């Protein structure tokens, strides 16, 4: 048997294949297709302190090898999650990580304090990179002082695993990664979506209600992979990698570039059972390459 276990700070994952925030709902939607215990974990839909209706329809535009979204963090707020969703999913035998969003530092802190009370949530993914909400999120993630400030303040109130999710919409992503590492982040995850745009030539109108939106899917993979590799070389903390992963080979590439855990995002829209297949293919790959532990892949790019 091959050993698929990996660790990100204190968080143990039974395997490195997890699902990305905003593309796996609150895990229970995926349970309609497969046993949640099979995968390493779920990064749950972005939560905010209060209810958010999100942006107006249309929020989606298909693009070559990917899509743009402008969902804008629609969610019913953390209290609704705690009362109505958490009880239903807390006994899933897998890691559940909450994706935390705010428009002010106070929001991030208040939200984190509430999440801290939940026994089965052993980590948060601090989203400072959502391109689809005007008030902030990405405002913090695109400058070192902004990223440092949120990370520092949240760190003060949170002892469990703190993963900071980075925006690719910056000049130098490793600089931001180093900045959050310096303020006590336990890990970084990347990439969030790339700011993009689509226009309908027939109607001469933008395809999204917000005009611009976040690009995801295989179209972004080479850039995401490059960024994961750069960041892994720049920081000592673990890296969670994502961006256009469609199969086991893609996942392995991200691990070789330095990711300890990978997230499958947009690809599940095409095939919701894909994470299960990727785990199986990862095992086959390791057997074929006579590898005992998946840790022998992480940051093991042969130069």
């Amino acid at each position, binding site marked *: 048997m091959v050993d698929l276990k990996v660790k990100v700070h204190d968080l143990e994952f039974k395997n490195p294949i997890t699902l990305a925030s*905003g*593309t*796996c*709902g609150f895990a229970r*939607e*995926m*349970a*309609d*297709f*497969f*046993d949640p215990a*099979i995968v390493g974990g779920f990064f749950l*839909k972005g939560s905010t302190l209060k*209810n958010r*209706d*999100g942006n107006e*329809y*249309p*929020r*989606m535009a*298909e*693009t*070559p*090898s*990917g*899509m743009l*979204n402008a*969902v804008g963090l*629609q969610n*019913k707020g953390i209290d609704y999650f705690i009362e109505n969703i958490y009880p239903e999913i807390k006994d899933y035998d897998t890691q559940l990580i909450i994706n935390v969003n705010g428009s002010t530092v106070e929001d991030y802190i208040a939200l984190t304090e509430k999440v801290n009370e939940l026994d089965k949530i052993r980590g948060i993914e601090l989203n400072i990179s959502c391109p689809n909400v005007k008030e902030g999120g990405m405002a913090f993630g695109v400058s070192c002082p902004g990223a440092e400030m949120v990370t520092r303040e949240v760190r003060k109130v949170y002892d469990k695993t703190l993963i900071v999710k980075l925006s690719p919409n910056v000049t130098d992503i490793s600089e931001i990664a180093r900045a959050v590492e310096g303020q006590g982040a336990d890990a970084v995850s990347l990439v969030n979506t790339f700011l993009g745009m689509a226009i309908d030539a027939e109607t001469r109108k933008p395809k999204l209600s917000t005009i611009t939106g976040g690009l995801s*899917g*295989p179209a972004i993979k080479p850039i995401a992979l490059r960024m994961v590799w750069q960041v892994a070389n720049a920081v000592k903390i673990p890296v969670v990698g994502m961006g256009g992963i469609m199969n086991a080979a893609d996942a392995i590439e991200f691990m070789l570039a330095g990711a300890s855990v990978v997230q499958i995002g*947009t690809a*599940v*829209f*095409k*095939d*919701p*059972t894909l994470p*299960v297949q990727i785990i199986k293919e990862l095992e086959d790959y390791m057997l074929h390459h006579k590898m005992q532990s998946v840790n022998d892949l992480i940051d093991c790019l042969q130069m």
Partner: protein
Amino acid sequence: MRKFKRMAKKFVADFVVVDNKPLNATNFLIKVKSNSVLPNILPGQFVNVEINDSKEIFLRRPFSVFEVDYNDNTISMIVKILGRGSKKLTEIEPGRNVSLVYPLGKSFTYPSSTDKVLLIGGGSGVAPMLFLAKESGLDKTQVDILLGARTKEDHIDVESYSKYANLHYATEDGSLGEKGFVTQHSVFINDLTKYDKIYACGPDGMMRAIAKVAKAAGVFCEVSLENLMACGFGVCLCCIEPTNKGNLCVCTDGPVFNINELKW
């Protein structure tokens, strides 16, 4: 693997195309066969179909279920050519595999045995109306179907449904049935209150016009929406429709909605 198969409520599987035939210039009947037993599938529910061999098409395309045959495990859909994806799908040859995510969405509220119902379909919305007519279990005298299209040629042949319902047609040029939109048809303008339930699926404008009149008449009315979708199973929140319960997902909370829920 075996364990989750049993707990799964929705599935992803390859089906074999067993039939693909044109119904008219733009509509095709596509029948696909599964090699496993189909779950129960109800009128209003849909499948999300992968489009093979296309470089530009990344996402699946949703189509309403038109017919289910549990004896030979087949699902049929009526595909209207709209853009690249639907076009490509209508070119698929029998024998080829096609991947479906199924069954998705919620069904129409079934009529009770004494109800008198009116089903209104237009454009790509004909399939779920015909499925409902067949499944309703009502006597033909209780069911009126009203179908709208631009011309006679745009209508598909549904005469075989005359055993389930009274068929009425509207065409914009008057080449079949009454001239005008479905909302100008005598069946619709005479007295809606004689119906206990109205169901509609078709272009947005048609459904809104129907909803407005049904609401004013105080008649129960459900519509099936066709918002753009990315996932089809409730995780991306791209397909939302504003309702009096907030933004709901058309793919999981719908596609069928009671008009009183909608902000129309």
